[in-house]
């Protein structure tokens, strides 16, 4: 279980550009929850992910993962428990290195001086073939040669190679063409289900937010303004979401990309 207890983050405090990104936010995420997150521009969605992943230390509050306080743990140490995908497919893998070399680092097995073994190569091939993109035959090719969709699928595989306690997906299909995006979403669904992952997904696609997962969170002004789970979530429609937003935020939903989709 991941618990956020009253976390806050203000950027550029004391300057003209002061921006309260998250304000006294508390959230309990149960094991196996698949939460979709929607919200207006600048609602604090990505900041929330940065706080969970440890990109910065929050100004106040605590973050507790499975009973362990990780508030002060640095980002690379948290990466052991928290996997993350970004909107930009280029961010998750090293373009100048081969697919198997990238996977070796993601797998993180063996000592510092261990090298890729035959067994590992076999395991990589098996996992890659599940992506259905033919990457299993391209183990030695540099990742830089892959398409955006292939790279994002590879990143998904890397982030979940050792199933993390929490998987953070920050609009990870937003930069892909619709067909590829659908494919990556299907993969995401399958990998999350197979590994019983606890997952948070930011999306600007309201249908996606409604279709996927068992829980939906709406954010505005650095806090959570609506949180629906299970049966309540299943009954929601896009109209409900827009209405809820108006009621709880006191304004119309102003995510420009969301209104277009």
């Amino acid at each position: 279980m991941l618990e956020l207890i009253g976390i806050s983050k203000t950027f550029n405090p004391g300057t003209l550009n002061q921006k309260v990104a998250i304000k006294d936010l508390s959230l309990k995420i149960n094991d196996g929850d698949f939460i979709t997150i929607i919200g207006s521009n600048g609602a604090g969605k990505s900041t929330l992910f940065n706080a969970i992943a440890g990109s910065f230390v929050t100004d106040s509050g605590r973050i507790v993962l499975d009973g362990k306080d990780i508030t002060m743990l640095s980002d690379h140490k948290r990466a052991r428990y928290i996997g993350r995908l970004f909107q930009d497919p280029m961010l998750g893998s090293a373009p100048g290195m081969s697919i198997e070399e990238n996977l070796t680092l993601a797998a993180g097995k063996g000592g510092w001086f261990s090298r890729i073994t035959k067994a590992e190569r076999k395991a990589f091939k098996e996992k890659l073939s599940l992506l259905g993109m033919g990457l299993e035959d391209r183990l030695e090719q540099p990742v830089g040669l892959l398409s955006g969709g292939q790279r994002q699928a590879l990143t998904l595989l890397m982030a979940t190679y050792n199933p993390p306690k929490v998987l953070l997906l920050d609009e990870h299909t937003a930069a892909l063409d619709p067909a590829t995006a659908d494919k990556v979403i299907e993969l995401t669904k399958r990998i999350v289900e197979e590994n019983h992952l606890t997952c948070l997904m930011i999306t600007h696609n309201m249908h996606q937010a409604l279709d996927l997962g068992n829980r939906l969170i709406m954010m505005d002004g650095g806090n959570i303004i609506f949180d629906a789970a299970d049966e309540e979530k299943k009954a929601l429609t896009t109209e409900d979401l827009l209405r809820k937003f108006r009621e709880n935020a006191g304004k119309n939903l102003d995510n420009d990309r969301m209104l277009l989709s």
Partner: protein
Amino acid sequence: MPDFLAELFKLAPGALELGLINALVVLALFLSYTMLNVCDLSTDGCFTLGAAVGAMVALSGHPFLSIIAAMAAGMLSGLVVSFLQTKMGINSLLAGIIVNTGLYSVNILIMKNSSLVNLNKTETVFTLLKEKLKGTFLEGSYRIIIASVFVILVILFLSFFLRTRLGLAIRATGNNPAMVKASSINPAFTTIVGLCVANAFTALSGCLLAQNQKSANIDIGNGMVTVALASLLIGNVFLGKGKVTRRAIGAVLGAVVFRFVYAVALRFNMPASMLKLVSAVIVILAIFIPYAASQSSQVKRRMELKGGRKDA
């Protein structure tokens, strides 16, 4: 024409020997510049440090220890540079320049407040092998043999090391640091390890050059980073793509070719002092040409537009 070829042939051993010794610095930059994506400007000072430490330890009567001591000193220098950039928030270029400046004083201190150490009568690995080979057909090749052995050892080490998990992490640090963090590895750690290893090779090169030419002076490393970078980029032209081992061999080839071309230019009465200008120009061209190629379509389009406007 046969005369000309004979002349070239005479130049070859000297160029090969200096090329191979320089190749060790080029391999150091292959690790720091190509793999880790850090331009380590402490290279000049570190090279001199290796020469100074190697010379002093050899003077004290320990020819083999001198090589180990020089490499250890280089590692220490790399540790300082990487510590400055990863733990003290100093820009990586600046960190190199700062350490380079500091090393000048350190090197003078090591050479006992002198700017020149003479090794004319000192026992070194070179003199030892020379005696061993006396009377055999390899008598004249002892310099090349020593330089080759070290180059081969370093290539073997790198082609093993860069395929280990630590080596992969170092390569990924230069490629995509965010991905290294996502793999639960601290990029500060990989940067420190990479620069320590690279600087050990730089210092080894300095140590060997000093012992080869039987003197170490405070200027021995001046401009070395540019010369090595030029060699590295020449090597990229020949063997710049593919597996790590292939590219490392390319780096060595670049160093030898660079030295050979330089030797030929000297033969045709180019002043020796031109070495650094030539290497500076090579570095500029080697970086500019790929850039220009990548921009060419834009430039072409701009020219077309300009032309079009004139016609209208």
